C-alpha cells in the first residue's frame, strides 16, 4: 500500500505539537508559582489585583489556553505516525545540516562555559574560531589556522586595547 508523503505543513504541525507540549509544561510551573504569589502572599489592603502574582497569573493562564489551542490544532492538522519512534528521531538527527548545527552549538557551549575566563580571551577565541571553521565540510585546516589567529588578535586589539571594551 502506498503511503502519502508528508507535506511541510504537516511536518511543521507535528513539531508544533511537541514544542507546545514542552512550553505548556513550563507555563504550568509558572502558573503554580504565580498562584502562590497571588494567594499565599498576604494581600495588600486594596485587593488581590495588586499582588505581584496577578499579572503573571493572567499571562500564564492565557498561555496555557493558547498552547492548548495549538496542541489541538496541530493534532488535527499534523501527521504523527512514528513521532516517537527511535529510528525516526535518529534519522532526523543524522542529516549533515543538523549534525553541523549541533556541532556548532556544542563548540559555542565549550567556548563560553569551559574556555572563557579560564584561558586568555585571545587564545580561547582563536581556538574556538579554528574549530568552528575547520568543522565545516571542505575547509582546509591550514587555511583556518592563520585566519582564526588573525581574527582573534584583531578582535582583542580593536575592542580590548583601542576601544577599551572589557573582554571576558
Amino acid at each position: 500500500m502506498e503511503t502519502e508523503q508528508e507535506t511541510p505543513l504537516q511536518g511543521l504541525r507535528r513539531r508544533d505539537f511537541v514544542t507546545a507540549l514542552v512550553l505548556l509544561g513550563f507555563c504550568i510551573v509558572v502558573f503554580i508559582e504565580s498562584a502562590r504569589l497571588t494567594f499565599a502572599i498576604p494581600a495588600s489592603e486594596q485587593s488581590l489585583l495588586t499582588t505581584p502574582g496577578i499579572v503573571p497569573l493572567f499571562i500564564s493562564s492565557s498561555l496555557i489556553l493558547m498552547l492548548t489551542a495549538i496542541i489541538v490544532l496541530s493534532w488535527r492538522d499534523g501527521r504523527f505516525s512514528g513521532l516517537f519512534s527511535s529510528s525516526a528521531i535518529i534519522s532526523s538527527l543524522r542529516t549533515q545540516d543538523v549534525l553541523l548545527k549541533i556541532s556548532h552549538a556544542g563548540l559555542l557551549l565549550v567556548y563560553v562555559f569551559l574556555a572563557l575566563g579560564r584561558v586568555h580571551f585571545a587564545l580561547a577565541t582563536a581556538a574556538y574560531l579554528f574549530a568552528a571553521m575547520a568543522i565545516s565540510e571542505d575547509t582546509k585546516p591550514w587555511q583556518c589556522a592563520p585566519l582564526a589567529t588573525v581574527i582573534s588578535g584583531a578582535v582583542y586589539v580593536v575592542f580590548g586595547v583601542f576601544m577599551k571594551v572589557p573582554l571576558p
Partner: protein
Amino acid sequence: MIEAVLTQLTSLLTNPVLLAWMFAGVTLGIIVGAMPGLTATMSIAILVGLTYGLPTDLTFAIILSVYVGAIYGGSITAILLNIPGTASAAATALDGYPLAQQGKAGYALGITRLASFVGTLFGLLLLLAVAPLLSKFALAFTSVEMALLALFGVLISGFVASPDLKIKGWVAAFIGLLISLVGIDALHSVQRFTFGVPTLATGFAFVPVMIGVFGIAQIIDNIARPAGERIKQSGGIWPDFRGFAKYLPLSLRSGVIGTGIGIIPGAGEDLGGWLAYLSAKAASKEKDKFGKGSTEGIIAAETGNNASIGGALIPLLTLSIPGSAPAAVLLGALLLHGIRPGPTLMIEQPHVLPLFGAIMLLACFFLLIAGILVAKLFVKVLDTPPKYLMPIVAVMCVVGAYAINIRMLDVYVMLGFGLAFYFLHKQQYPMAPLVLGIILGPLIDENLRRTVMVHENLLDAFTRPIALTLLILIVALIALQFPFWRRKPAALASTSAPPTSD
C-alpha cells in the same frame, strides 16, 4: 524643531571623529544588511553592548547609522543573489533580481539606493513633524492608558508579525512578558520566579537576551548555508538621478505607507516594504512588469522599508513602544544611556529628538556616498562563506553581551536564550513580539496594578475615553483570532510551509 535639528546638525558636522564613525557605521550597516543571516536587529543588539562605554551622541550616531545602512543593505543581496539580506528586502528581490539578470544590476542598485535615501528622509520628516504632537497628546495618558497601550502594542505586534498561525505571535509575546517579570517586583519588592537563585533577583538583563535571540539563533540557523551565487555587478556606480525623478510621486506614496506601517508596534520594515510594493502594483499602469524587473517595484519596496525606520521611532520616542524589532533593541540602548523615552521625553530631554533627526539626516547622505564610493568593493564581502563569517559573529555576540555588566552570567544568559529560541524561531514563532513583550512587560505589570491601587472604582479608570478606545481595540483584536479555529486544514494540501520570519 527645525532650529533644534539644525543646531544638533552643526554640532555633529563640527565633530570629524563622529562623522568618521557615522560613515563607518553606515558602511558596516550596508555590509551587515547585505549578508544573508546577519540582520539589522542583530547588529544593533551587538552594538549596544560594544558601544556601552562611549558618549551618548557617539553611541546613537553609530547605532542609527548602522540601522539606516542595514535596512538598505538587504536590497544588495536581493538584487545580486535573489536572497534578501534582511526580511525587509524580500519585496525588492521580486523585481531586483530579474533586473540584474537583464544586465541592469548597477542600475537596480543605484535606484534602490536613491529610493532608500528618499524613504529614510521621508520617515525622518514625519518623525520630526508627528512626534512632538503625539507627545503632547500622550501627556494625557495615566497608568491605565499606558498599560492598555502597551498591551495593545504587544498584541498587535504578535498579530502582524507571525508568518504562520497568528496565535504563535501572541505566544511569543506572552513568553516575552513572563521573561520580563523575573526578578524583584518594583511595587512590593517580592522576588518573582527566581526559584531561590540569587543571581536571578535582578532579572534577565535585556541586551544579552536580545543578542541571544537575534544573534545566536541566526548564527546556528545560517552556519550550514552555502554562499550564494552572485550576479556580476554591471554598469556605473552613479545612481540614475534623472530616471528616479519621474518616480518621485510613487516614492512619496510608498514613504507614507512605510512610515504608517512603521508606527504599528512590531510591524517592522518588512511589512512596510511589502505593503508599499503591493500598493504600487495595484496602482501601476504596467502591472504585467511586476515580478519581471519593474523599476516601480524596487522603488516602492525600498522606499517603504526605509521609511518605516522613521515610523518605528515615532511610538518609540513618544510612547516608549517600539515600532519594530530594531527599534525595540534601540529602546534598550536608550535606557542603558539614561534616556527614558515616553510622553515626557520632550520636556525632560528635549535634545534627544533633534539629535536623532540630525543623525538620521546625515546617515541618509552617508548612505548615498558610501554606496557610490565603496559599492563595488563591499559587494565582494558577500562572497564570504557563512562557515567563516558566523563564528566571527558569535565572538562579537560574546563580547557584546559581556561588555554591558562585565559578568559572565550575561554571556550564559545570551547563549541559553539564543539556543532555546532557535527552536522557537524554526517553528515560525516570530521574535519581534517576544522582544516587545520583554520590553513592555514591566510597563504593563506596574501600570495595571497601579491603576487598581489608585482607582477605588475600576470602572471609572477603564471608561476614560482613551482607555475605553484601547480596550475596545484589544477586544476586537482578540475576537479576530477566533476564525482560525474554524478554518479547515485546506492548506495541508500545499507543498510548502509558511515562510520563515527573521
